[in-house]
Every structure is written in C-alpha cells, then in structure tokens.
C-alpha cells in the first residue's frame, strides 16, 4: 500500500513539473506578438511613416512615463484613482456579497428582493451616470457610488447563484452529521459557493475599473482618467497612452490577484490544478 502511495505521489509531482514547463512555454509564445507590434511601432514612428503627433511611439511613451513618475504627478493621480476604485469596490462588493448571501440563503428574501435586483441589473450603468451626476454632483461621492454600483451586481449575482446551486444531497449529509446552523453556513454553503464568489469578485473588479474610467473621463480634476482627458486636450498622445497602459496594468494586476486566490482556495477543483 505505502509503496503504491509513494509511486502515486511521485507521479503527481512529475506531472506537476511537466505542466509547469508547458505553462512557461506557452507564456513565452504569448509574448511573441506584442514584441513584434512594439518593434514595428517604434520603427515606423522613428522612420516618420506613422505621425508621432497622433500615434506616439514606445520610446516617447516610456519617456513620458518616467517624467510623470519623476515629477510626482503620476503618484498623485494614481493615488486618487486607486482610492476611488478601492472605496467603490469595497462598498459595492461588500453589499453585493452580503445581500447575495441573504438572498441565497432565504427563500423569502429571494422572493422579495431578487426580481427587483435582476430588473435593475439590465439597466446599462452608463445610462445611470447622468442621474448620478445630477444627484451627487461631480465630486467624489458620485464617482465612488458609480463604482460601487458596478461592483455590486456581479458579486451579488454570483454569490446568489453559488449558494442556490449547492448540491442538495450534501445538506442531508450535514444533517446526519449534526452540523449546527452556523456550521451549515460556514462549512457547507460558503465553501460550496466559493468558486462562484471568486468569479464574482473578478467580474466586480473589472466592472469597478470600467466605472472608474467612465467616472474620471466624464468629469474630474484629478486621477488617471483626468490625466488622460487633460493630455488629450493638449494633444499629448504619449501621456494618453501612459494613462491607458496604467488602467490596463491595474486591471491585469487585480485579475492576477483573484487568480492567485483561486489557485489557493480552489485547489480541490479540477480546473485549478495548475
């Protein structure tokens, strides 16, 4: 038995290593196209074929980025944008999770709340923006609330779905093992719904970034979105690109963070073995 076990473990380790090698290879292949584009862009810009005024070039963008960092301008914009995004995400995400849990666990609250929330969900967020500006002005409140709204729906929906789809047969097991009410929630429902909740967090984060961009482009006097708008009016294409890249990076980093969480919390699932 134990020899067999060791052999099986060894096999697991081996296949794990092979997988990692595969992942490294495919990551390398993924960087190929971006590199080609960057080189071509720089070459065409330097040769004067692409108008630098409109298309900038990688080296100009890099210089602009370094200047912005050195002057401390970048840190200021980034700080205010991050604060807005985090506040909004925390507010909307928390409410989405909380209401999702309540609605997912209680049939009655589902009947009261879910139809209304589902109806509101179909309204495009951008269509509500003018209302928010009318109600809450151009200040921080309207921005944070818009981001919160963007984060709320995905997290609410996924939490609710996850809890609703908990395998009913496992409830019988929990009853026979005499799980308390609290244990049923913490040791059955939440772990079973976790894949959906994490998916909800990921969708909520990307929705929060989207709303941040919209809020800052529409009207702000600070923040990365404002930096883009400001640069646009002065035809500073390189700074516009810097702003876009910052948003893209922020999205990528938050996405990787959730993936990291998934890899750790969902290692029991087939699809998260890597």
């Amino acid at each position: 038995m134990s020899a067999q076990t060791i052999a099986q473990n060894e096999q697991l380790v081996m296949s794990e290593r092979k997988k990692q090698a595969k992942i490294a290879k495919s990551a390398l292949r993924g960087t190929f196209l971006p590199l080609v584009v960057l080189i071509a862009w720089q070459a065409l810009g330097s040769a004067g074929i692409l108008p630098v005024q409109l298309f900038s070039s990688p080296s100009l963008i890099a210089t602009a980025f370094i200047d912005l960092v050195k002057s401390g301008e970048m840190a200021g914009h980034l700080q205010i944008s991050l604060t807005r995004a985090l506040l909004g995400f925390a507010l909307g995400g928390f409410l989405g999770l909380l209401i999702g849990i309540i609605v997912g666990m209680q049939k009655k609250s589902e009947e009261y709340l879910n139809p209304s929330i589902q109806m509101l969900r179909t309204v495009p967020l951008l269509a509500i923006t003018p209302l928010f500006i009318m109600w809450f002005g151009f200040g921080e409140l309207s921005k944070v609330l818009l981001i919160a709204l963007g984060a709320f729906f995905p997290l609410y929906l996924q939490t609710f779905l996850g809890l609703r789809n908990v395998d009913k047969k496992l409830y019988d097991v929990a009853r026979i093992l005499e799980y308390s009410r609290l244990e049923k929630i913490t040791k059955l429902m939440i772990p079973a719904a976790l894949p959906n909740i994490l998916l909800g967090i990921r969708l909520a984060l990307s929705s929060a970034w989207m709303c941040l961009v919209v809020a800052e482009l529409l009207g702000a006097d600070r923040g990365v979105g404002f930096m883009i708008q400001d640069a646009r009016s002065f035809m500073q294409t390189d700074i516009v690109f810097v702003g876009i890249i910052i948003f893209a990076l922020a999205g990528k980093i938050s996405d990787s963070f959730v993936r990291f969480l998934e890899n750790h919390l969902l290692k029991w699932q087939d699809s998260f073995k890597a």
Partner: protein
Amino acid sequence: MVSALEIKHVSKTFKNDQESILVLKDLHLTVNDGEFVSIIGPSGCGKSTLLKLIAGLDLEFDGKIIVGNHQVSGPSKDRGFIFQEHRLFPWLNVENNISGNLSLKNQDTRKRVDDLIALVKLKGFERVYPRQLSGGMSQRVAIARALLRNPDVLLLDEPFGALDAFTRTHLQEALLEIWERNKTTMVLVTHDLDESLFLSEKVVVMDAKPGSIKAIVPIEIPYPRSRTSKSFQELRSHILNLLDHHPQDKEDWSI
C-alpha cells in the same frame, strides 16, 4: 435480545399536486442490537425511502420508528448513513472529510481519524481531495466518516452498487470486518442477492406497489461464508423463488 431498531406499522405516502402515491404500506420490522440485516426488493419498492425515514431525514409518515428506546425525531449521528454515491465534500481532503465538523486539533479525534484511515486502508491519502480518488476509495472515506461518529446503527443504501465486482468484494469483506469488530447494527439496502446472503444474518424481501415486506429470511450460515457452499446456493434459490412471483420485475435482479 435488545432491539436496536423497531419499525411499527410504518406507511409512507408521497403527495404531489393532485395525486398521492402510497410508497410504503404497513411495514413491520425489528432489528436486534448488533444484527446485520439486508433489505432487498425490486427497484422503486421504497427501500431508499425506508432508510431515509429511519435516518430521520423525512418525518412525514404514519406509524412509529424507534431507535434505541427513542422515537425518531430527526437525523442524528447515532444513525450513520452511507449513500449510494459517496457524497463527500469536494473542497475537503480525505481527513477533513472524515472529521467534518469535528476538529482535528482535538487529540482524541485526530487519533481516531488516523485509526479509521488505517482501517479503510487509505494511509497516505490523508491530504488528497475527492476528485483524485476512485469510486471505491471515496466510498471507503464515506464509511470512515460514518464510523467516526460511533453510530449505533449504520444505514447503507446500495453502498457498493456503482463499483466494479473486485472492489465490491473487497469492501464487503471490509464491512464484515468492521461489523465483527464494532458490533454496529447494520441495515443494508442492496440489489445484489449474493451480497445480502454473504453479509447478513437476516434478509428482508420487499414487494413493490405498494412497498411492503414479503418475507424475512434468516441466514444461518456461519461466517466467513463461501458463495459456492451448498447452503448458500439453497438459500439463494429459495429467495429467488420468493421473488419469482413477480415475473415482470425479474430483470431488476442482478444474480
């Protein structure tokens, strides 16, 4: 003999929107303390329903079910249940599935979980998740999970039905070993006549539409039993004859 389980005039009706179906009709059965009883009968005759009633998972029935001097009023750790599918929690590894809501930080629990893992021959798989286990291994984890609670009665609903013949035989022997060691009262639902003859002291033969007890056959062959012995074969044809009165159900029997 003390009785571990008494089923008195139990009837069960499922009510749909319009019609109501009588699934169990006036069942009467006593299981002695430490006895091994199997229940066998055609598909749909209400075997699973009966086990659920005994487990206390469903309280809407007529009659009385008494387990160890108490009328059943809900599920309890004292009545372990092993389902046809293993029903492990996919997010818990083997040892956490076995311990469930009991903490492995508790010295006593820790030791008993380790002992049970050895008993069901899963040493080395403590940290493995259910998706990495075979069907037979998963079912052994489910058995260990039930045994950890020291049940007075173990209810088994076709626990080995989905397994290959080789694994099934192995688990049948393991179950006998556990029974002989712990003297747990066993109620085993099965489709497999040989399984019931190999394991139990008493075979309850059920009839369908509505589900009722047709005969209770004592199996007085000493353990360990040989499936090829003469007395085994005789009892086998005797029970097959009992079942033969319903030719339309014949194909349901795995022989």
